[in-house]
């Protein structure tokens, strides 16, 4: 099923939950809503579910406006962070509840619930109460309940936030595999960008109720259109340095005190002559080498596979990922090589990208 949001807005008095959201989800597409806490992800999702009435704007399912369709008539499945399992019902009753409401005959209900439960690997837990299950098992029951009525749209509200890191990893691929296999259009709310980037076909980045960007994970990562997206997507986050780009002898130089790097002309020409601009570069695009920009090691944080190193270049401070074998120490002087094919430029006042506007 295709979903379209048009100028979708939700307000409670002065509080803005979602502000003029425009977005479309293609049939069988997996879309993630990504954004910091309080940015309106749940609000938008609940409007799609029909729980909240929009203050303004439209929601369309396959071209039909559904603003006034009750949740029960929208044929959606939903999975919650809190699992929201009915505590007084056992696993079978939880999973079959949507079927019971549809007045599906008993034996078919039994069959379908069992099939979904087996698919989720909880077929043997049918007569347990939710309180007698682990968090991971509860999440599978919740997923089973959402899937059992074969919905046309699946909504997830941070379903994996309460699971431990390993389980989260395996559930992530499991949900993705299920969704691809069944081909159900899905909207997945998360504030974990790794989840969004790895699972989604497209990611909608939100901030303060507004849609900031809506594109594929690769594009968000490689061609961020705003300073906010550049800083929000990617871990560890992108470094930002204020500088000036000038053209000299046919080369573009990005310069500030203690820093002078030649930028490829396709990127440099868009930032040259604009006065002060913000240069963005990801920690993984900076390497420690024998020559290049001099810098001083300030703090070394071990991330296991890499060290995250805070360096000072003159007044400026940047983060660099380095091989722990180098054994860098505080106060050590090194030289940095910048992968200039990956640099971004932003206008400091509009905070828009100078490269991908």
């Amino acid at each position, binding site marked *: 099923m295709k979903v379209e949001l048009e100028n979708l807005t939700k307000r409670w008095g002065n509080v803005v939950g979602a502000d003029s959201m425009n977005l479309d989800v293609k049939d069988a597409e997996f879309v993630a809503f990504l954004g910091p806490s309080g940015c309106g992800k749940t609000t938008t999702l609940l409007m799609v579910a029909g729980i909240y009435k929009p203050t303004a704007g439209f929601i369309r399912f396959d071209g039909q406006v559904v603003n006034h369709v009750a*949740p029960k008539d929208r044929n959606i499945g939903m999975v919650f962070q809190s699992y*929201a399992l009915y505590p007084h019902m056992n696993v079978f009753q939880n999973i079959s509840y949507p079927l019971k409401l549809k007045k599906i005959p008993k034996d078919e209900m039994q069959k379908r619930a069992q099939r979904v439960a087996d698919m989720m690997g909880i077929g043997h837990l049918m007569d347990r109460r939710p309180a007698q299950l682990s968090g991971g098992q509860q999440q599978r029951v919740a997923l089973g*309940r959402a899937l059992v009525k074969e919905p046309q749209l699946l909504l997830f509200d941070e379903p994996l936030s309460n699971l431990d890191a390993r389980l989260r990893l395996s559930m992530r691929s499991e949900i993705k595999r299920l969704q691809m296999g069944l081909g159900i259009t899905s909207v997945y709310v998360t504030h974990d960008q790794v989840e969004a980037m790895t699972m989604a076909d497209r990611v909608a980045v939100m901030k303060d109720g507004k849609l900031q960007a809506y594109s594929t994970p690769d594009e968000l990562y490689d061609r961020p259109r705003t300073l906010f997206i550049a800083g929000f997507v990617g871990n560890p986050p992108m470094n930002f340095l204020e500088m000036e780009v000038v053209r000299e002898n046919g080369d573009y130089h990005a310069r500030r005190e203690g820093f002078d790097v030649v930028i490829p002309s396709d990127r440099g020409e868009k930032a040259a002559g604009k006065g002060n601009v913000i240069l963005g570069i990801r920690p993984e695009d900076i390497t420690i080498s024998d020559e290049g920009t001099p810098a001083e090691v300030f703090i070394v944080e071990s991330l296991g596979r890499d060290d995250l190193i805070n360096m000072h270049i003159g007044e400026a401070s940047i983060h660099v990922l380095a091989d722990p074998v180098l054994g860098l120490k505080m106060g050590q002087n090194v030289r940095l090589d910048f992968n200039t094919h990956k640099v971004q430029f932003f206008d400091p006042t509009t905070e828009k990208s100078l490269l991908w506007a």
Partner: protein
Amino acid sequence: MAEAVMGRKVIRGQKPPSRWAQFKATMGAWGFMGPATVLVLVFFFLPVVILFVISLTDLSSSNFSDPLTFVGLNNYVRLFRDRFFPKILGNTFFYVAVTLSCFNVGMALLLALLTTHINRRAGFFFRLIWLLPRITPSVIYILMWRRISHQPPFGLINQLLAPFGVEPQYWLFEQPWLFVILVNGFVGASFGLILFSSAIEAIPRDLITAAKVDGASTWQSIRDIVLPMIRWPLLFVTTYQTLSLLTSFEYILLLTEGGPGLYTTEVWALTAYKRALKTYFGHNQWGYGAAWGFVLVIIGIAMSIIYLRVFRFNELVQEPKIDVL
């Protein structure tokens, strides 16, 4: 550090607790339970015993300075032979059953559901209004009802219905039960209302959202999610209110005094009160009244046991949240 703690636990697990430790645990339990036990003994158990003893005598306001004469079960025989005993028993069950089902539980539940499904502030305000009868002094409250149901040419109902061509009448006399039940119900409903609405509000929002998304209508989500989740307060209110209705009589006393006519709205507790403490000629039959009172205590205890069995309270009691060593 962690190992040391674990080590101690293991040792504890292996060795059976010493006599001294057992003694300490027992004393601790008594220490905590003691004050409540004393209260129950002094203010419930002891009075019941005294009540029973009095019911075996012919103590009354005409012979209270003489030594006590025990008359065996004579008072009980007299009670069960009383011409109005079946009437009073029937009245009592009718009064309790109808007030309980229509108001103390029924209306309370309905109002709790309503006030939790509308705007929060409006709901709160509405509940506050329903508390008013409870905080109004009984005499004033009953006076108000008597004015409402007064005989022509007075009475609020008569005034209000006159424009519709309804014949004015003495409503309280024509429909005494209606008013007895309304009067008690309006007060009784607020107790359940408060308990039910707080229990409903404690249900996580996500559960209701989940039910709606699963395809439930409002009514279905109430039936399948809300009601099962407030089962405990429902059963508690039913039990508690049954017992308090059984023993309550002050509103009936003030409103109809058990009338109009002979024993029309007389309930058991009212009879006990009248026999023991208020007879027309100032002749208070304490012994006989005590017999009525004692039978009521037995009915109350029997009802409690039945409720405990029927509702399986044991199963509702959750495992303690804190493990005590």
